[in-house]
């Protein structure tokens, strides 16, 4: 019946890549991801290697992006930093995605009192200023990376739950769900086989836009000195170090900042592009 139509995925991919900005953003993110994954194999130096005799040196053929005040190679530090920044961004998004999708689907599908109570909880949680609680968490329990992205992920699921719920509410009144129910398909199968796959479009869009938000939050905390701890580095820490010594050593600020901004820019563009691709009606 549908065999001669291109699949939704392929159609969306086609539309996404036809937008030149999203296309370049995809390539950029892909390259950054690959570099981050294979960093231990290709990094020019060890990430803790200090050349104190050299000290801070501007970009040269030995150190393509220069070295920091302790003589550490900036390119290497940025490559290792990208691993942490991206990991926090993606893992926290996954945490948010799982909680949000489950919560929203159950609320939207079961409806009635359950829905009212579940969404009431979301409303109340929305009111809590989480940035302050996250800072408190970091202060009190030390700067634990796992805790950091768990906490961030546990905060970011709220909007996800709302989006999924409204999607599911619309879907669950449609004929194919009624038909499945009438045929006696178990509720859990309806949720996983029919509801979630059909509600996934806006969720993917929102998840893509959540990644840069979380990376921003991590950078923000690291910048204040409340995030990732030395000797580990993240883009936020590199930017802070760069800001401290920018008067004499501009490259320490400029290169991490450019990379980080470009990453945020690309992720946002992919999110926007995906929204247009998955839902042609929405325009921009």
């Amino acid at each position, binding site marked *: 019946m549908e065999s001669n139509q291109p699949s939704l995925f392929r159609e969306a991919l086609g539309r996404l890549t036809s937008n030149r900005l999203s296309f370049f953003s995809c390539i950029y993110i892909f390259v950054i991801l690959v570099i981050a994954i294979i960093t231990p194999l290709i990094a020019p130096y060890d990430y803790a290697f200090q050349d104190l005799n050299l000290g801070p040196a501007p970009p040269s053929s030995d150190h393509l992006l220069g070295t920091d005040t302790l003589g550490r190679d900036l390119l290497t530090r940025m490559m290792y930093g990208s691993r942490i920044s991206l990991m926090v961004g993606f893992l926290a998004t996954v945490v948010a995605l799982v909680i949000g999708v489950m919560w929203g689907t159950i609320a939207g599908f079961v409806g009635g009192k359950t829905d009212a109570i579940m969404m009431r909880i979301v409303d109340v949680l929305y*009111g809590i*200023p989480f940035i302050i*609680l996250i*800072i408190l968490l970091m*202060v009190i329990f030390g700067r634990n990376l796992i805790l950091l992205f768990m906490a961030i992920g546990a905060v970011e699921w709220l909007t996800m739950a709302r989006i999924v719920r409204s999607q599911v509410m619309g879907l669950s009144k449609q004929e194919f769900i009624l038909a499945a129910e009438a045929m006696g398909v178990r509720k859990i199968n309806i949720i996983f086989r029919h509801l979630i796959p059909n509600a996934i479009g806006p969720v993917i869009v929102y998840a893509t836009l959540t990644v840069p938000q979380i990376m921003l939050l991590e950078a923000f905390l690291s910048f*204040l000195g409340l995030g990732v701890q030395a000797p580990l580095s993240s883009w*936020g820490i590199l930017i802070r170090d760069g800001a401290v010594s920018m008067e004499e050593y501009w490259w320490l600020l400029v290169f991490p900042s450019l990379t980080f*901004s470009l990453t945020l820019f690309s992720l946002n563009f992919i999110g926007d592009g995906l929204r247009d691709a998955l839902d042609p009606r929405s325009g921009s």
Partner: protein
Amino acid sequence: MIELILKRLATAIPVLLAVVTLTFLMVHSAPGGPFDAEKAVTPEVLAKLNAKYNLDAPLWEQYSDYLFGVVQGDFGPSFRYPSRSVTELIMTGLPITFELAVYAILFALMLGVSAGILGALKPNTAYDYVPMTTAMLGICVPSIILGPSLILTFGIWLEWLPVGGWGDMPGDKILPTITLGTAYAAYCARLTRGGMLEVLNQDFIRTARAKGLSEFRVVVVHALRGGLTPVIAFLGPAMAGLLAGSFVVETIFGIPGLGRFYVEAAFNRDYTMILGSSIFFSCLIISFNLLSDVIAASINPKLRQ
């Protein structure tokens, strides 16, 4: 209208109570007491200190005492600066942070709303693309990058503006305001454009044009009222973001505001100060959310239920 305010207040109070309880418990479950600092104190002194700050009482008693104090606006003494109370410290920092936030939001509204209107009036032209792409850039360049870059460019290389302080030198408020406000200007621009585009297609705008009203009147008096609803709904969350952003901006520019006190207290493990300012910040954020809901409802009758 009053019903709406009451309804929102009814949700705000449990949220506040939850925040107070949560922060209180978190701070009290923290490993290490406030007096484990540099110099080890003898057990007798420690006992006296604990007695002085009521730390030897059972937890629920400390909690109820604290809650009672907070209701009266008393957050107790600062552990770090024992001669000053937390309330006093908050009150020194608050006016400065508030001034910074107000400047930033005014900057954001002026720039963002005009860019958004321009984009909506001439959609899909250069008047639309240029401001909207710039807005995208503004959202993506976070304050931790924008602040240092502005200092580097205008403070160090061009030497046009001072790079630190607040009210000490003429012009030292400009860079912090821009740093804090840019991202919100960008959001305002996008929201205004979206809201205006929706409104401008509606019948009552066609009627207004058909009546022969000037374009200025159509846009500013008729369309803007509806078109700005998303921006106003955004102002509450934006205010929350601005307060959080003040942590970074005040640290970068060395502004003696509430945000900087908060970060310092976090580093010094000044528990009463962290607790007090967390609660205070939460109250502020919750009130701003309430306020923006009420304003949005008074502009858009559909939201009044």
